[in-house]
């Protein structure tokens, strides 16, 4: 024991360093493998034991030092330093919690829109956001910066940008192949955004954090497509697709219910074959006047034309059927490939997919009236080509354009908006066909996505729509040959050389 004591005393410095290293190892183990408690606890125990032993064996010296004048001053300095640093850490902590930002970019790139802030600040559950981007791309930085703003606005949102090639396990866990995907996760709900910006991110946040499910009602009882049937003419696949997208789908029988239910977020009339009763029409009308949402899919005559409603929205339904001599399927002129999406929130996801189309089967001719009623914002989403026409006798032999049959373009899809109050808007999507979304056709081309998107737009809160994209100024810089040479010569040769020469001059003048 005595020898051991001497050994420790003689190698005080070594013991102290060893103790310090043991504590450091413990600390790194604690962070690297927090679940292996015994490992870091052991390292800490060893470190502490070494230090305590050191103190114990040197107890007299330590005590003497602290009693002496020097010792007291030293202890005072050390303690006051520790205290001052503690205060500084506290101040940093406080500053971190009460942050104010100054965004010094032209486009206010780092400032979230008020709509987003309203959404984000109201979130009171943990949200995990993982974005998968190529670490070397500009997008990586952009998305990371953007996600940081969300995190700063509400610390419950935890964000992270990773490269799927560097963390393939994580990518697999989130079923991500490739880059440019951002996954939002809360309460076990997941929402994926492909590329996108603030608007899409905020939309995804709303979807994963919203507790109540938006409800879609399908009107039944007038020969509409059966909403839950999986027969060819049924809408069962659309229904289950919507349910996967977090919607609740119900049927509506207005004759028994009298009014449109309060929880109705979107009402769908999918190809009614018989006219609605006046009471039913009145119920839907008053629902719409209070800011209701309607997806109205028409069918060619003799199905009802809903012309009284269409009139109010600036549209006009005609008899007959649209035929498209060019863009049709296998010579069936009534099966129309609908290309050319107009720019609108409903069609936004399809803007890039120029080669794809929606396949409409037997579409009712709809024309935009020359005058749109005031207060109504009408946007055509898809139109037929100018060579199309309204055919009245499709099933009576040859099709050819008769003089009384007007020519296209016809409206195949249109979005209508009408303000009720400042915040509330009535929204309607009118489609010239209802067959495209049946089980038989919904898997063709963009049909399913288009139908879903119409419902999204109708059901979505306004916050999703009103965030304008920020126009970033172009950041490309093209140097001419002359500029290249100048830049290199000036920044790498002339300037540093000038500094060195002035140093030489100073040195020379000082020497002389």
């Amino acid at each position, binding site marked *: 024991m005595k020898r051991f004591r001497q050994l420790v005393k003689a190698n005080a410095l070594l013991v102290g360093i060893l103790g310090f290293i043991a504590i450091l190892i413990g600390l790194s183990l604690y962070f690297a493998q*927090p679940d292996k408690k015994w490992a870091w606890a052991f390292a800490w125990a060893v470190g502490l034991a070494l230090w305590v032993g050191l103190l114990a064996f040197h107890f007299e010296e330590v005590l003497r030092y602290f009693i002496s004048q020097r010792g007291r001053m030293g202890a005072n300095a050390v303690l006051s*330093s520790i205290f001052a*640093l503690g205060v500084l850490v506290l101040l940093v902590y406080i*500053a971190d919690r009460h942050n104010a930002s100054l965004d010094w970019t032209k486009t206010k790139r780092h400032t979230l829109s008020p709509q987003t802030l309203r959404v984000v600040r109201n979130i009171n559950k943990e949200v995990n956001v993982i974005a998968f981007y190529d670490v070397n791309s500009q997008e990586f930085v952009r998305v990371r910066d953007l996600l940081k703003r969300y995190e700063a606005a509400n610390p419950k949102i935890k964000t992270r940008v990773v490269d799927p090639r560097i963390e393939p396990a994580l990518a697999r866990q989130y079923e991500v192949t490739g880059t440019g995907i951002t996954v939002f996760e809360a309460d076990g709900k997941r929402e994926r955004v492909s590329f996108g910006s603030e608007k899409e991110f905020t939309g995804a946040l709303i979807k994963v954090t919203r507790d109540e499910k938006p409800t879609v009602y399908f009107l039944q009882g007038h020969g509409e497509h059966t909403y839950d049937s999986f027969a060819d003419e049924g809408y069962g696949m659309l229904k289950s697709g919507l349910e996967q997208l977090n919607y609740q789908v119900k049927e509506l029988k207005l004759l028994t219910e009298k009014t449109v239910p309060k929880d109705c977020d979107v009402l769908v009339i999918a190809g009614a074959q018989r006219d609605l009763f006046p009471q039913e029409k009145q119920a839907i009308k008053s629902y719409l006047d209070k800011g209701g949402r309607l997806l109205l899919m028409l069918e060619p005559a003799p199905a009802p034309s809903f012309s009284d409603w269409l009139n109010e929205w600036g549209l006009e339904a005609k008899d007959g059927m649209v035929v498209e001599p060019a863009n049709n399927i296998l010579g069936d002129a009534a099966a129309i490939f609908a290309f050319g999406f107009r720019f609108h929130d409903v069609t936004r996801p399809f803007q890039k997919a120029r080669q794809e189309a929606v396949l409409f089967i037997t579409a009712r001719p709809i024309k935009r009236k020359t005058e749109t009623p005031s207060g109504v914002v009408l946007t055509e989403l898809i139109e037929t080509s100018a060579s199309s026409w309204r055919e009245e006798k499709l099933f009576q032999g040859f099709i050819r354009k008769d003089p009384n049959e007007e020519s296209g373009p016809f409206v195949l899809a249109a979005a209508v908006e009408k303000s009720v109050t400042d915040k509330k808007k009535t929204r309607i999507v009118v489609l010239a066909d209802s067959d495209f979304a049946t089980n038989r056709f919904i898997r063709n081309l963009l049909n399913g996505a288009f139908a879903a998107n119409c419902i999204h737009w109708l059901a979505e809160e306004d916050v999703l729509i009103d965030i304008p994209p920020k126009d970033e100024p172009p950041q490309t810089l093209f140097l001419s040959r002359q500029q290249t040479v100048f830049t290199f010569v*000036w*920044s790498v040769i002339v300037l*540093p050389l000038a500094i060195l020469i002035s*140093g030489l001059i100073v040195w020379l003048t000082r020497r002389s």
Partner: protein
Amino acid sequence: MAQATKALVAVKPKETFARIGEWLAVTLAVALREVRSLFSSWVAYVTLAFFEIWAGFFFFAIARIGQTSDMRYLFWNVAVILFIVLPMVTMRLLAEERRLGTLELLLTSPVTDWQVVLGKFLGAYYWLVIALGLTLYVPYLVYRFSGGTVDLGPYWTAYIGLLLFGAAAISVGVFWSALTDNQIISAFATFGTLLLAYVITWPTEGTGTLAEICRKVSLYYRYQDFTAGLIQSKDVIFFLLLTFAFLYLAVQVLGSRKWR
């Protein structure tokens, strides 16, 4: 404390200002002396030239090869160059005085420890201002080359960030040079500390305690927002407090001669 307040109130404001002015004048005199000695040796010029070559090369590479006016990568690299160069500037501050034996002279003169430390700090800061000032051709050239379309906001915030970041880095250098009379050790310790501050930036991507802590303490992580055109009060306060902390420690170290 009450006494101090009373004393302050009792003193006429004019006198108080005069005293503060005097205090600052002495501090500035120390700073000026430092600047003069720094710029009459080769160190200032070689470090400046080294800094400008690298900054210039990165600028050239990003503008020419990257073909972008987004100079974030330039400013990140400038910060990295700074932690290589700054230790060479700060290594001599107090260590040199100590080696030459002039530190005692300075400390026994009616100059307080805070004035010495702050003066030394400002002396080295002058170097930083010159070094950054010489890179101002970058926003000018980008502005010219882009035909005036570039958004210069992020450039100015990056410079503000560099001034704050540099202040913290220099205060680390002042601290280490107060602790040792060997310039090489002073430089390496400063470099090591700043390197550690850099390395700590790596685990900031991610969730968990470690990433959280690293994000709080990493100088580079906090600096990155400045280069994107965003100034946040929390980061400004962090840099200022960090600067103050190391200067305070340096003052404590100087004061330790009384009890060591």
